[in-house]
């Protein structure tokens, strides 16, 4: 166990009776040295080595001195050692015919002392939580011999209900990111943690002298009681010290809105499942913000149709740019962000409560179309008093939030569809002001010791007044201690940099969006010399070196009070949370009336409005170095690896923004888009423009998070930095900017450019009305031949599809393109990241993709925007449909017939098996696949060298190398493992597999339960029931491929008054 980090030892120092079960709960990582060789040829052994390197091998230091340790997350094409290896491999292969070459000896490296409860080759699951903004996502982590490999939602946790999102799924890659900072540094030179602790003590004493007048602490949003307590403890030791908070992508709107409405900070919790009618004021509650996973689950549970009899909730969305929520809405109205307030007022105006009291003739501000919309929404809301809900968007102003609260109150929704609790944040403050104060103090030289715990202010602080150059400010501070996972832009200007532990590496806790207390337990000791914020703070206190383990234990004990402490502790760790700790609703007396609001003004026509939004995949930039999220196509734009200034088709036409499809990659890969210069808030940025159907005219969206300079090999120098034109007084919506279109073009990686189904049987949709009238709408013009109609022999008679008949049903009504399934699949199936260049050649590897189609009403739409005249109006606000496309597992699979070596054939249970080791890579199967779901390793995309990435791989799935075709297998590894378990039951006699016992990765992740997998032979399985529905149809049924993956037609609950508006 030598060479393990201090953390390890600290744990051992914990003086509890060493208890078997507890030790299991606290797995420690040398276990992975023993990873059974099944875990991909001696990975364990090599990893053991790299641990020793970490324990002070001289070469390791050189590696650290390199500015960029070679990243593996993004595949790079430069000719390097890897090419040489490939050359060797190839030549050996050619000489020795690889197949029959004699492989070298392998070794088995068993444990020295095997941890109790560990069964070799059996994954274990641990409950923990992922802190995210003012929320904690409850997760279960799968661990193979001590290596966390897969993150899934924790069914018992209120914030996830067993689902997850792309961020949670991808966070495992952050843990193994080879670019992570690996050791504490002082001015860039390597130091040990011990060095730091000494220095910290020194600084502490000097601060003590001035009772901490020069000490400042800067953190993000903190919901961890333990960490908060630690900060408070520090503040107690240093009374003059101050605690500042800055979270770039979380708006003060909701906080201040509550203050405006109720006179104090309150936390708003929705009960979406209770709402029949929802109005979203530029809100994206389905895919971002606290509780979004739960909200999505609840929202779609209200949209589950078992037949034409069922009812659905209805969602109206008003937003400047299409969000996941807006795309899922039944009715959507594009409005400038600045017009939302007026819109909200106009709605409120219609309520009896306020009628006449409000500003009259508000509706004159809006187009007839919008007025109609307002009318309809207002009536619909009032029809559903108590069961309606108004949601204000994160990025909206305090006023809009206050209005939303007022409307909910007026509609009697408070207590039914929405309630308020004490803030989840340990210390809610106005972040903009907080950071401003800090900057001013620094400016005035009041700060000599600044602890930046997480975050990256140099990169993401606003770019005006005191902040015009935060780095210059930092230089004025005597000592800056920066704690972060990567050595990033801020670290550059900090004397001390301490690598931050990943949440899978350290003890901690957090409160979920509703206040539920969740425990964060480590699954692996820190891979590098990393430490948590708690430990860094401890270094400045009178008890340095104390870990957070005790504190968490104490916290749990405090919450649960008496009883068997040990038992409670173990139960808590087992559940990952303490049930019933959600905050109770509080009575919030309204201190606000819409009438008090000044008459809203709407933006002048044709004046450009610039709005900032967190990026859908890399958020505020913290995920910039995460290859999975970078390569994940953004739900509404289908672009990857870049952000772009989003504009509406009409505005694009007006400004002369164009785009052309590059012949390399084309619609499935590369589009060259105009480059624009944006001058705003005294900053200037050059960005690629991207045309987004359904965006409000004259609105330019600037997604945050890109343009990182020191994110790591994967994330640096991608896209443009929107923060550089972001001013503090206009953090979310800015006007007065200047946009000039240049003649340059910039290649954008776009995985799906063509958005018209060309009248093919791909997506079928209807309104709820139509569905009730014609439940069979999905089979209109369906040319699928009847089952009996075949000359082929019936394989059932040969024993096929007898026992189990796996099938998947995907309900298009429930898919909003959030893409959690895509990342979940990538994580489960060891799918490589190929990088922007390869994506632009149309070679991305996702086994499940999400196609996005617009209902444009256009008969056909050719490649370029040649026919703008018809296209622009059609694309003003087109309903969007999202279709997840995994392998369809056709019974008459076109791919199988053409494979010359039988590398893809049918299994007895109807899976379209793909045998990687038999595949020679003719690509004929992909050509012949009508759904184009097969993916090919054109080059060696898989990273075979980086040790940390080897740890991450799922040993249950073959790691594919160059020249091999791959595709979705319905997670056959999960099927097989469950089947084997079921067959072992009853003393080897076995039993039937229960419905829902096998859950594919995509199904597991899906927050809207759109994907259902199961046995089609069992009439009672969920999938059979779905397949029995009339909405159930085959994609491209007329080809008679007989897919096992079927779709259920999308149904939208349209408001009759607005229908065909």
């Amino acid at each position, binding site marked *: 166990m030598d060479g393990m980090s201090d953390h390890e030892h600290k744990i051992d120092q914990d003086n509890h009776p060493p208890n078997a079960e507890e030790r299991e709960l606290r797995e420690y990582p040398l276990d992975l040295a023993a990873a059974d060789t099944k875990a991909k040829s001696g990975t364990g052994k090599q990893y053991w080595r790299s641990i020793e390197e970490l324990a002070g091998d001289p070469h390791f230091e050189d590696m650290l001195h390199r500015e960029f340790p070679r990243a593996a997350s993004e595949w790079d094409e430069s000719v390097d050692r890897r090419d040489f290896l490939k050359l060797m491999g190839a030549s050996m292969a050619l000489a020795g015919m690889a197949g029959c070459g004699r492989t070298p000896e392998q070794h088995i490296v068993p444990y020295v002392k095997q941890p109790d409860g560990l069964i070799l080759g059996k994954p274990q699951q641990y409950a923990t939580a992922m802190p995210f903004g003012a929320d904690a996502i409850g997760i279960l982590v799968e661990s193979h011999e001590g290596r966390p490999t897969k993150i899934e939602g924790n069914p018992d946790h209120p914030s996830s209900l067993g689902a997850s999102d792309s961020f949670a799924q991808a966070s495992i890659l952050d843990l193994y990111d080879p670019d992570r900072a690996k050791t504490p540094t002082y001015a860039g030179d390597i130091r040990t943690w011990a060095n730091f602790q000494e220095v910290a003590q020194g600084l502490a004493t000097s601060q003590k002298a001035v009772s901490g007048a020069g000490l400042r602490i800067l953190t993000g949003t903190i919901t961890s009681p333990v960490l908060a307590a630690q900060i408070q403890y520090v503040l107690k030791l240093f009374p003059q010290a101050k605690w500042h908070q800055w979270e770039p992508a979380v708006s003060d709107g909701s906080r201040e809105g509550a203050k405006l409405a109720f006179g104090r900070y309150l936390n708003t919790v929705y009960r979406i499942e209770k709402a029949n009618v929802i109005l979203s004021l530029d809100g994206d509650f389905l895919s971002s913000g606290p509780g979004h996973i739960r909200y999505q689950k609840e929202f779609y549970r209200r949209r589950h149709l078992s037949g034409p009899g069922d009812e659905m909730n209805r969602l109206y969305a008003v937003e400047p740019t299409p969000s996941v929520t807006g795309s899922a809405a039944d009715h959507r109205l594009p409005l400038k962000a600045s017009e939302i307030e007026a819109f909200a007022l106009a709605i409120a105006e219609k309520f009896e409560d306020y009628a006449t009291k409000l500003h009259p003739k508000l509706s004159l501000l809006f187009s007839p179309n919008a007025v109609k919309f307002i009318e309809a929404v207002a009536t619909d809301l009032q029809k559903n008093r108590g069961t309606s809900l108004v949601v204000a968007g994160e990025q909206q102003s305090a006023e809009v939030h206050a209005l939303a609260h007022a409307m909910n109150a007026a509609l009697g929704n408070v207590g039914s569809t929405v309630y308020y609790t004490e803030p989840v944040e340990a210390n809610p403050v106005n972040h903009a002001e907080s950071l401003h104060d800090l900057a001013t103090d620094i400016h005035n030289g009041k700060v000599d010791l600044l602890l930046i715990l997480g975050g990256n202010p140099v990169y993401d602080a606003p770019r005006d007044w005191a902040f015009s150059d935060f780095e210059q400010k930092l230089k004025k501070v005597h000592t800056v201690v920066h704690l972060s996972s990567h050595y990033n832009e801020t670290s550059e200007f900090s004397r001390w940099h301490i690598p931050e532990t990943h949440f899978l590496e350290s003890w901690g806790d957090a409160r979920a969006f509703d206040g539920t207390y969740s425990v964060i337990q480590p699954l692996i000791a820190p891979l590098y010399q990393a430490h948590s914020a708690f430990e860094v703070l401890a270094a400045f206190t009178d008890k340095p070196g104390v870990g957070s383990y005790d504190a968490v234990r104490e916290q749990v004990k405090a919450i649960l009070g008496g009883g068997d402490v040990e038992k409670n502790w173990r139960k808590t760790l087992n559940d990952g949370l303490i049930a019933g700790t959600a905050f109770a609703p509080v009575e919030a007396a309204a201190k606000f009336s819409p009438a008090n609001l000044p008459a809203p003004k709407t933006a002048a026509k044709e004046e450009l409005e610039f709005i900032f939004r967190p990026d859908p995949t890399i958020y505020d930039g913290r995920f910039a170095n995460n290859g999975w999220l970078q390569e994940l196509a953004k739900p509404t734009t289908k672009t990857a690896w870049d952000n772009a200034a989003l504009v509406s088709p009409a505005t694009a036409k007006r400004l002369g923004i164009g785009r052309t499809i590059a012949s390399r990659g084309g619609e499935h890969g590369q589009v060259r888009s105009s480059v624009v210069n944006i001058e705003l808030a005294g900053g200037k940025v050059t960005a690629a423009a991207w045309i987004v159907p359904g965006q409000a005219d004259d609105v330019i969206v600037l997604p945050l998070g890109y343009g990182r300079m020191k994110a790591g090999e994967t994330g640096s120098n991608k896209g443009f930095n929107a923060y550089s034109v972001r001013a503090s007084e206009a953090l979310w919506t800015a006007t007065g900017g200047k946009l000039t279109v240049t003649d340059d073009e910039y290649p954008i990686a776009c995985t799906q450019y063509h958005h018209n189904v060309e009248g093919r049987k791909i997506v079928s949709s209807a309104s709820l009305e139509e569905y009730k009238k014609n439940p069979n709408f999905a089979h209109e013009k369906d040319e699928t031949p009847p089952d009996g109609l075949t000359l082929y022999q019936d394989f059932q008679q040969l024993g096929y599809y007898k026992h189990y008949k796996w099938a998947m049903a995907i309900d298009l009504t429930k898919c909003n393109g959030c893409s959690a399934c895509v990342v979940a699949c990538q994580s489960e199936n060891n799918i490589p990241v190929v990088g922007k260049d390869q994506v632009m050649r149309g070679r991305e590897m996702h086994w499940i993709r999400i196609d996005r189609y617009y209902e444009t009403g256009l008969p056909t739409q050719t490649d370029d925007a040649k026919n703008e005249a018809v296209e622009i109006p059609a694309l003003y606000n087109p309903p969007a449909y999202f279709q997840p496309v995994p392998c369809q597992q056709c019974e008459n699979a076109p791919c199988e017939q053409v494979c010359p070596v039988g590398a893809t054939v*049918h299994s007895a249970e109807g899976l379209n098996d793909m045998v990687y080791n038999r595949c020679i890579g003719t690509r004929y199967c992909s050509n012949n696949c009508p759904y184009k779901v097969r993916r090919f390793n054109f080059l060696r995309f898989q990273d075979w060298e980086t040790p940390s990435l080897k740890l991450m791989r799922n040993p249950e799935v073959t790691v594919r190398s160059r020249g091999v075709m791959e595709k979705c297998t319905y997670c056959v590894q999960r099927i097989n493992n469950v089947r084997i378990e079921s067959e072992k039951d009853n003393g080897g006699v076995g039993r039937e597999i229960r419905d829902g016992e096998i859950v594919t990765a995509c199904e597991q992740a899906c927050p809207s339960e759109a994907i259902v997998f199961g046995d089609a032979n069992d009439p009672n399985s969920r999938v059979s029931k779905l397949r029995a529905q009339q909405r159930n149809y085959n994609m491209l049924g007329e080809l008679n491929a007989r897919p096992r993956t079927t779709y259920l037609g999308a149904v939208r609950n349209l408001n009759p008054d607005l229908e065909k508006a």
Partner: protein
Amino acid sequence: MSTEPRNTLYGVLGEFDSADALMAAARKIREAGYQCFDAFAPFPIPGLSEACGLHYGLKGWRHNFVPQLALLGGFGGGLTGFFFQYWVNVYAYPLNVAGRPLNSWPAFIPVTFELTVLGASTFAVFGMLALNLLPQPHHPLFTVPRFKRASNDGFFVCIEATDAKFNLAADAKFLESIGAKFVTEVRDED
């Protein structure tokens, strides 16, 4: 291979100056009752083989067995081809490929056909060579310098010593009598 130099009489060779002369000569020789003789020409002369009394078909199989061999090879190749595929798909490792029947005989036809052709042609060619006792780079006739012209513009007849009524002197005279403008004995010697 015996090592001591040998010197045996192979036959008597006569050269004629045209294809027609050669034909005529061949006929006369045959009418004269010779069995073991052969005619040589730089290109196939229609009717020459009949003139030399070579027959087609089974009757003259010793002279030309090539078609029968081709037929044999064709059948061999075809049957092997089809039944091999049948065996692989139905017995060796039956698999559900695209829901197609195990014995998808229509899909087996191309390979069957190709193997038929392959079998037939290889048998035809190698059969022809074997029956012609080729390769045979060494042959007594090559000792005669003029014989080189047999591959250019020379027309020859050779009565072989193995013929029952072979007599060097008589046959030589006979050849001259039927218009051979050059006659020589052929000796197989080292």
